[in-house]
């Protein structure tokens, strides 16, 4: 069920500061990941690396709707959410370098960013497995009478798994303060959504659970911000779970191991024309909020952050071997 478009308020004028903030956030993710891909080929990062490039408007737009008290649950494709949530880039880079200065002490790597101080609960590697966890975070909030939101990010692939269904039902049944954010990038690994779902309208899947849902253009950061804010506010007001589908696309392969044989060049190029950063830069320019110098300044700031992140990661010490068995248990 798509919320009646009629209830949407007219978009307020974009303030310059906020616009630059959003741009900065998106650019940071983009450059961070470009750097990650670069050092991956040098062997500094290993294992799985799933890039978010092309989807930046989703995490950045959505995260504007959350307060520091809210919780975030993400997937293995978690760089965008982590950065937008405010996890410091240098801790994330160090994590991927396998250093003890990383956000998970180098034990998690790219797929498993954690930061409990920012209520960022992973980095969950099994498709759809973050959803049940999110149910519990939200359930605990209801016990403790907190008015906060648990935002759970997942892909179109997760919608196929049974756990998605169990959690949608549970959230609605128990009126849990959960915000479901589905990033529909049209593929689960190499499987196009048409080969995965009998019906591809994901937002429509919320109806049988009685969960209000909306689908928005995930390439437009302001549209994402608006829709997710509306939904998050409703959740925070105690109106139960809400669902937002963000229609997006990943520009890169599924992971560094993926030869990307299942998509055409044309399809990818077509989507690149709707690059969320380009779109937003154009909008800022159009509204007179950004010029070449302004863009260069943001780029320079981001470049400095990334350089610092790499330097920090490089300099970090690995966890001492004698701690190998530590923290399996609390006691």
């Amino acid at each position: 069920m798509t919320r009646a478009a009629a209830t949407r308020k007219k978009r307020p004028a974009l303030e310059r500061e906020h616009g630059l903030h959003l741009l900065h956030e998106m650019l940071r993710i983009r450059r961070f990941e470009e750097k990650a891909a670069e050092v991956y080929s040098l062997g500094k990062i290993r294992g799985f690396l799933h890039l978010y490039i092309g989807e930046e408007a989703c995490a950045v737009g959505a995260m504007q709707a959350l307060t520091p008290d809210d919780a975030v649950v993400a997937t293995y494709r978690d760089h965008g959410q982590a950065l937008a949530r405010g996890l410091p880039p240098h801790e994330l880079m160090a994590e991927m370098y396998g250093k003890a200065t990383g956000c998970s002490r180098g034990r998690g790597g790219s797929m498993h960013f954690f930061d409990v101080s920012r209520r960022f609960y992973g980095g969950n590697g099994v498709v759809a497995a973050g959803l049940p966890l999110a149910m519990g975070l939200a359930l605990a909030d209801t016990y403790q009478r907190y008015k906060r939101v648990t935002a759970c990010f997942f892909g179109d692939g997760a919608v196929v798994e049974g756990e998605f269904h169990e959690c949608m039902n549970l959230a609605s049944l128990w009126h849990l303060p959960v915000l479901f954010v589905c990033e529909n990038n049209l593929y689960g690994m190499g499987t196009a959504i048409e080969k995965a779902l009998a019906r591809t309208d994901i937002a429509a899947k919320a109806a049988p659970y009685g969960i209000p849902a909306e689908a928005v253009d995930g390439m437009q950061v302001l549209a994402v911000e608006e829709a997710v804010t509306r939904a998050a506010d409703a959740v925070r007001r105690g109106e139960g779970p809400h669902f937002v589908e963000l229609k997006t696309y990943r520009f890169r392969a599924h992971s560094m191991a993926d030869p990307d044989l299942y998509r055409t060049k044309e399809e990818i190029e077509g989507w690149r024309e709707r690059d969320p950063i380009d779109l937003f830069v154009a909008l800022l320019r159009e509204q007179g909020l950004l010029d070449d110098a302004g863009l260069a300044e943001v780029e320079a700031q981001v470049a400095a952050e990334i350089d610092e992140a790499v330097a920090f990661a490089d300099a970090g010490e690995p966890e001492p071997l004698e701690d190998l068995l530590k923290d399996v248990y609390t006691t």
Partner: protein
Amino acid sequence: MSTMTLRESIRDGMRQALADDERVFLMGEDVGSYGGAFAVSGSLLAEFGPERVRDAPLAESAFMGAGIGAAINGMRPIVEIMTINFSMLAMDQVLNTAATLRYMSGGQFSIPLVVRMATGGGRQMGAQHAHSLENWYAYIPGIKCLSPATVADGRTMVLAAVADPDPVFIFENAILYGNKGETEEDGVPQVWKAAVRREGGDVTVVTYSASVFKALEAAEQLAGEGIELEVVDLRSLRPLDLETVLASLAKTHRAVIVDEGWRTGSIAAEVSAQIMERGFDLLDWPVVRVCSAEIPMPYAKHLEDAALPNVERIVAAVREMEV
């Protein structure tokens, strides 16, 4: 100290936990108005209301995850999975979330989760309702595993689990729920250590849960022949308390392990392997396992009886040892 059933003893433990700490809640299929599939929760709904005693829908993965998430976020959930047979539906959440999150986040948080489930065979339930899969759980670093034999341990294990900052799984052999006994207990820390349920100098029987009573019966029978069994109840399946086993072996030099699991890869296999590693020089005879036949559990009583470890097979195993 009072006399009650194991079912009541576990309930009593939960009652105390619920009363003592408002972060505790019980969640599971039919724990509320049905009173629990095995009547373990019984009156708790009436006593604590539907928030603290929460009926969960038939979605094992979702509510297991909900337990994990709630444990991370300030609560102390007790999740009841109706039986171990259905727990595979939640196994991903156990293996990949409950057991990994603390370690792979670099120790950022604890997961004070308790999971209880009925296990075991012997009630003519057929192949899909008679599994013993405790060994699979005991394989997983990041969780702890308990299994009560005595009425006293029922209550104490619940309290030990709730007090623990890490995920603790309690495996309750359903055949024991109606057993009567005393609730006077050794105290919470003791449940992590094996208990000697009967002393004897000839052969050590290492076992846990329902098989403890089979071992005690075998001991009774063999005592008549002058063979004295020492019966060790492991209680904790992860971590395993091998010290108590080795101390007994130092006396008896012979061991039989009795385990309702299938033989291959059972808890009994691990105990045998550890005895090999740490008690080899103590042995006068190879360690013997008495386990379930390696078949899906049949419904017919005579077949199920033959498939499960029983007193005769324990006695026969001991007799072969030329004590």
